[in-house]
């Protein structure tokens, strides 16, 4: 296995009794890069991450983590990674500071200076009992321990789901710094803006299978732009054009999406129809995501099947 990949997963399968959580999932994280991991609830993101952490054993496929086997070499590998779960459970009667020290020690050593620095940046009071922390504060505890560890690989499972926008910003900054230091990051998230800002590559999964993966810029390129235009003439000619989808007409205002490959034909047709105001929006990750998970995707799948 190549050391240029911090995480390399191919054809991963995992069942819990009769239900198939993973059906041949592929995922890779290049060393020193930030990889986004997206999918709706229950699509298998946390299962994949738990397999990478050696908490669950894969039924089939291969998974390599920092050049090792996540199940067999768990203890050795865990010295080189840090993990923040989506739902952080701490010891209710210990303080946040104590929990951070215990977690740091479990991954190697306690770096007091870095811990203090991150405590300050995340504005966390370490002298409070964990039981009195909100969800966001519990996440901060795990984040401080993970970021202070300087591990080679950081695995985040929806790490900002309880944080306020200010703290989300701090998190974004911390991840960019980690990347600049050469750390690799696997980031599972539902926040598109966060993924767009941070991630070099994106993997989108659905029902335990990878449906889209690659460099973010390339993925967008494959998709459609949304055009909103006010026309003097009738939009009927547009409907006959190939590569135009989802037309809605509201008086003189027309909104539709268009394949990048058909853009030139569409613009020629539009020019003849007397356009007054035209707005073109590039495809966002959110649209890409919804396209894979929306009702239309379901129908497409049925037709293809």
């Amino acid at each position, binding site marked *: 296995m190549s050391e240029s990949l911090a995480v390399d997963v191919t054809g991963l399968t995992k069942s819990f009794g009769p239900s198939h959580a993973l059906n041949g999932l592929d995922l890779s994280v290049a060393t020193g890069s930030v990889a986004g991991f997206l999918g709706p609830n229950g699509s298998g993101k946390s299962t994949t991450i*738990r397999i990478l*952490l*050696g*908490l*669950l*054993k894969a039924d089939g496929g291969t998974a390599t983590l920092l050049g090792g086997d996540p199940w067999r070499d*768990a*203890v*050795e590998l*865990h*010295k080189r*990674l840090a*993990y923040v*779960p989506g*739902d*952080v*459970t*701490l*010891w*209710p*009667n*210990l*303080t946040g*500071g*104590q*929990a*951070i*020290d*215990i*977690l740091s*020690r*479990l*991954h*190697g050593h*306690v770096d*007091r200076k870095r811990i203090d620095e991150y405590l300050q940046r995340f504005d966390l*009071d*370490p*002298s*409070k*009992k964990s*039981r*009195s922390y909100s969800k966001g504060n519990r996440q901060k505890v*795990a984040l401080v321990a993970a970021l202070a560890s300087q591990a080679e690989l950081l695995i985040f499972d929806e790490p900002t789901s309880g944080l306020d926008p200010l703290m989300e910003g701090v998190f974004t900054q911390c991840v960019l710094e980690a990347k600049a230091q050469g750390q690799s990051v696997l980031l599972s998230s539902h926040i598109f803006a966060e993924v767009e800002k941070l991630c070099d590559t994106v993997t989108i999964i659905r029902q335990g299978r990878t449906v889209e993966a690659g460099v973010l810029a390339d993925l967008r390129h494959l998709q459609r732009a949304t055009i909103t235009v006010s026309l003097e003439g009738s939009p009927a000619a547009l409907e006959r054009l190939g590569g135009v989808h989802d037309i809605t007409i509201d008086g003189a205002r027309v909104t539709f999406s268009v394949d990048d490959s058909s853009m030139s034909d569409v613009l020629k047709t539009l020019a003849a129809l007397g356009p007054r105001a035209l707005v073109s929006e590039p495809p966002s990750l959110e649209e890409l995501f919804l396209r894979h998970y929306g009702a239309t995707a379901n129908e497409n799948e049925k037709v293809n099947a």
Partner: protein
Amino acid sequence: MTAATLARPMSSSSRDFAGWTTAAQFLFRRNWVRMLVWVLVLAGLIAIVIVSQRQTFPTQADRTAYAAIANTPAVAALTGLPYAAGSLGGILIIKIWMTDAVALAFAVTFLVTRNGRAEEENGRTELLRAGALGRHAYTFANWLLAAIFSIVVGLACAGAAIGEGLPAYGALVMGASFTGVGLAFVGVAALAGQLAQTSRGANGIGIIMIGVAYLVRAAGDLAAKHDVAGGISWVSPIGWGQAMRSFGENNWSPLLLLVGFGVVLCLLALRLESMRDLGAGLLPDRPGPRTASALTQTPIGLTLRLQRWSILGWAIGILVGGLFFGAVATAMSNILTGNSAAATAILGSSKDVVGGLLAYFTMADGLLVGAFVLQSVASVRSEEASGSVELQWSGAISRVRWALSRIVVPAVASLVVLIISGYAEGASYGAAISDPSQAGRFTAIAIAYWPTMLLVIGVVVFLAGWLPRWSLTVSWVLYGLVVLVSMFGELLKLPKSFANDTPFTAIENATTKASFDSLPLIVLAVIAIVLAVLGLLRLRSRDYVAS
């Protein structure tokens, strides 16, 4: 606080209780199975004991003979003063009243905490109260359910006694005395749920209060004149229940005390609930240390840190138990050596009786330590179920090493606690008979129970490995069965070969024989280690299983 002051002027008291019927239905659905099991066990014990005592004392002559010797310090201290030992009903009270009453007190404590403080702690109450539920509706429904449960237990026990042919009036008074004790401890648990911030804390307060009530009435019963308990018994709710003297004078008036006590404590708890915020106790959380000590950072140090109050509480409880048992044995030996040749003739020589009694007490202490060990080693599974292992297991520690840190602590702590219990019992008895060597002797006997504690650990670890989701329920049910068989095997007329071979009674027998037999100890230790190793192997190779 602000919410309370805002809501107060406009909210009538009925609004505070809005929706309590919905809450009560919901609570009933969540708890009916466990309540039914308690009712069947408690009423079943009544029926079984009547049948077994009818066989033991078939004629009135047998019962009259028993009445002449029934009133010993051991019986008075442990199960209450015999006051009607010449009748089957009176014998029933001697044999099982205290067990049922104390068990019911435990049952309502756990029930009230489970649906009260524990729900609040894990945040479910917040969800429910955000719906159209009044401030007190959920707590009120919880207490009401526990109160109705106490009434049903009382009726079922009375019914079992009537069904077995005991006088109906006495049986009703007995049932009412159980109900009364249950109601009194509903009040205690309700108050504990307001004072403590955690379910552990609430259960802890409840258990301490049950222990205090039991010991206070034991002191009263030891200070009895003939068959009338000393005045101090009137400080204890359990003493009030005894004072109803079912199948004797059938005195209803203490029931008023019991019910009144429960109601007053519940009203007090309601006041406290209006004064505090949801999720908070009455005492605010103090800030703690900002960093973990070097010890707490190690897995074993963390286990100790998490369990230190629990270990200390158990050690103190078992120390008190040991002193109490020693004192009872002393009182017993006093009457046997002091005067009557008649007593010796009937009960046997002092050495045999007191020796047997002490061995029985050591076993009872062993069962207590067993509960401590089970509760401590349960963290092997409970930390996985709660999800806190997710962060620990993704650290650089193997699951086996992690589990060993959760095993070593109860293994060593149980040895220490056993030594404390044996020493306390032996020293308090030895001081009374001016024989200092007793402390050492009973310490050695207590240590003989250590392999049994290892077996408890082995069973829990085995189950945590192979049956993670069910392991804790199965462990506690097994423990409950072992307690029943060990403590009441003879009373329930179980086959001797069965009753004498539980991991606890086997040790009791090994220590009472003339020559000490170490075979059972070795067998237990080997089984314990094999089970633990099998459990650890499975834990290492299976998936992480959250609750």
